[in-house]
C-alpha cells in the first residue's frame, strides 16, 4: 500500500497548532484506511495533544520508496528541501503558512518550478498566494477542523483571553494602556492562554466574553475560530491568513502597523459590553456560523476527496 508520510518538525515538546492539524490529517486518513503516518525525529514520549489515532513514526527509521508520497511542510530548511526534491518519490506540499516559504526559497524561485506533484493548503489566502505568486495552477484548500473539545456553555464573564506569544509587545501595550488610559476598565481581567493544554484553553474561552486576537503572519489562525465557537467576541488582528474567515460581521478586526488604535477599539468594545451585554449578539452569532464551517468531518471529507483523486 502506498505510504503517505507527513513530515513534521522535531520539537513536539509543546502544543503547536500546525502539528495538530498535520496529525488530524494523518488520523483522518488512517481512519479511512490509508497508510498514513506523521514522521518526526522527536524522541520524547508521545505528546497527548496529538490525535491518538495518528500513527507517529521516527523519521530515521521510516522507509519510503518510489511508490510512496512525502507530504512536505512550509518550514523545511533549504538543505532538507533540496534533498527531498532530488528523491525519486511523489511529493505533496501541505502549506499551513505561506509567510514561511521565503525562508527556504530564493526570491527568484517559484514553487511551481519544483517537482512537487500537488499542493494542499488550509486557507484561500494561501491558495491565492500559491496561484498568483508561485504560479501553482490548482492548489486545493482543505480547511482544518476545529479540534478543541467542546465544553459546556458557561455564563460569560467580562474577561479578555489572549495568546501573547506572537505579539508580546502589543499584548503588554494593550493591557497596560487599557489599565491606565481607560481606568474604568481596570477591573477587566486578562487571561493568557499561552502554554495551556488545549482542553484548558477551551475552558478559559468558554468563560471569557472577549478574545483578543494577536495573530501575526498566519496561514489561517485557528484560535480566533475556536474563540468564535466558544462564544467569544473576537477583537484584533486577523494575521493575513485569517482573511479566510474574518468579516465585518463576525469580529472587530484591526489591521494597522501599530497597536495604538487597538487599545481604543478594545476599550470601546468593553464599554459597550458593560452598557449592554447583548450589544454584540448578531456578531457572536455570525462568529458561531463562521466557526461551524471549520469542522473535522468536513475536513475529513475534503481530505479524502483530495487523496482519492491524487492517488
Amino acid at each position, binding site marked *: 500500500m502506498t505510504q503517505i508520510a507527513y513530515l513534521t518538525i522535531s520539537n513536539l515538546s509543546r502544543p503547536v497548532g500546525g502539528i495538530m492539524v498535520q496529525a488530524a490529517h494523518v488520523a483522518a486518513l488512517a481512519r479511512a484506511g490509508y497508510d498514513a503516518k506523521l514522521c518526526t525525529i522527536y524522541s520524547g514520549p508521545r505528546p497527548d495533544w496529538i490525535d491518538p489515532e495518528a500513527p507517529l513514526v521516527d523519521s530515521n527509521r521510516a522507509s519510503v520508496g518510489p511508490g510512496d508520497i512525502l507530504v512536505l511542510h512550509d518550514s523545511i530548511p533549504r538543505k532538507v528541501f533540496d534533498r527531498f526534491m532530488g528523491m525519486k518519490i511523489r511529493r505533496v506540499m501541505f502549506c499551513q503558512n505561506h*509567510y*514561511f*516559504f*521565503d*525562508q527556504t*526559497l530564493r*526570491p*527568484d524561485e*517559484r514553487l511551481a518550478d519544483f517537482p512537487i506533484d500537488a499542493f494542499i493548503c488550509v486557507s484561500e*489566502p494561501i491558495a491565492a*498566494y500559491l496561484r*498568483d*505568486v*508561485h504560479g501553482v495552477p490548482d492548489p486545493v484548500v482543505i480547511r482544518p477542523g476545529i479540534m478543541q473539545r467542546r465544553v459546556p456553555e458557561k455564563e460569560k464573564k467580562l474577561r479578555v483571553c489572549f495568546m501573547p506569544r506572537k505579539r508580546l*509587545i*502589543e499584548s*503588554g*501595550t494593550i493591557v*497596560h*494602556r487599557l489599565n*491606565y*488610559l481607560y481606568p474604568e476598565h481596570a477591573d477587566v481581567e486578562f487571561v493568557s492562554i499561552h502554554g495551556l493544554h488545549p482542553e484548558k484553553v477551551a475552558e478559559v474561552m468558554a468563560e471569557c466574553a472577549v478574545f483578543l486576537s494577536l495573530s*501575526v*503572519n498566519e496561514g489561517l489562525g485557528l484560535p480566533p475560530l475556536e474563540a468564535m465557537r466558544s462564544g467569544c467576541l473576537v477583537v484584533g*488582528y*486577523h*494575521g*493575513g491568513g485569517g*482573511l479566510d474567515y474574518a468579516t465585518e460581521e463576525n469580529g472587530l478586526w*484591526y*489591521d*494597522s*502597523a*501599530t*497597536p*495604538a488604535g487597538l487599545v481604543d477599539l478594545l476599550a470601546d468594545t468593553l464599554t459597550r459590553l458593560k452598557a449592554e451585554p447583548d450589544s454584540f449578539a448578531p456578531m457572536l452569532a455570525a462568529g458561531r456560523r463562521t466557526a461551524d464551517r471549520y469542522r473535522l468531518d468536513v475536513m475529513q471529507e475534503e481530505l479524502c476527496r483530495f487523496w482519492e483523486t491524487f492517488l
Partner: protein
Amino acid sequence: MTAPEICFLLAEQETERMEKRCFFEAQAALLEAAGIPARLASMDGTLPPPGTGGRIMVFDLANRDQAPSVPDGDRVWFAPVLWDPYALFDPQMTWMRREARCLALLVSGEHEVELVRKYPIGQQVLPLHFAMNYADLERRAAEREAAGPLVIGCLGRKKAALDFLRGMLTRLQPAAARAEWVELDFEDRDAWLRDLPRCDLLLAMRSYSGSALPLLEAMAAGVPVCADHGGALSRLASADNGTWLESATLERCAETVAHLLERFAGPGPQLSGICANAARAAGQASAAATFPENLNSWRSLMALCAPS
C-alpha cells in the same frame, strides 16, 4: 550655581545602539554649544566623579538594570529615555517610582507624552525630540537614470517580513525582479553611509520605536522612503513625504510597494515632489531644528535637581 553635567550612557549590547548614539551625540554637542556640560559615556566604563553641579545620567529605560551604582551623597540623578513608547510596563514603572535618583522620564512625541503622563510612574514626563545631525550625503537626483536597474535598500529587524515582501515583489513585478536589493544596516554606520546614496528606494520594516532616525536620514538624503515607521513618525508621516506601510498584513504592504514601483517604471517625474517634501520634513525634525524645544526640556530637567 554650576549646571549639572548631562551624561548620555550607552550599553555595549543594546538594541538600536547606533541610533541612540547619533541622538545622544547630537544632543551632547548642542548642549555644550549652549553652555551646558554634556558628554557621551559607556555604561560599562568608569566615569570621573561628578563636578560640583552634579550629573544627570540619561539612558534607555530598557537598560535600567545596567544603570551605574552611585555612592550615597553623590549629586547624581537619572533621567531615562523611553525609547520604545509601546514598551512601558509595570517593571519599568515600579523602578521609576522606587528609584530615588530618578528625576523624569524623557519621551518622544507630544501624543506619547500625554499618554505616559497618565501612567503611575511617579515622575515628571518631559518631551524630547529623538533627532540627529544627518550625514552630509550627496543628495540623489530625483530623476533616476532610466537605464540601470532599481537599487532597493532593505532595512529592518523584521527580516522574515522583508524576505516575504521581496519574494512576492520579485515574482510579480518585472522592475523588482531586475532590481538590485541591498541589505542596509544603520547600526553599521560606515556601510550605511556607503550604501544608502546608491539606493533608489529605501524599503524598511521597523520595530516599534520612538526613533525613526534611519528613515529621516534617508529622507534628508533624497532617497524615497517606503516604510513601516514603527510608530515614531505618526505625526510626521504623510502621503506627501513618503510611502507608509500602514497595514499589519504583508500582502497589503506588498501591494503598496508594488504601486510605488510602478511609478518608478513610468515616464515623467518620479517622486521628485515627495523627495523634496521628505527632505523638508526631515530637516524640520533634525537635531538642530528641534533643539530649541529640547533645550526647554533639558532646562526643566536641570531645574528638578536644583536644591530646593
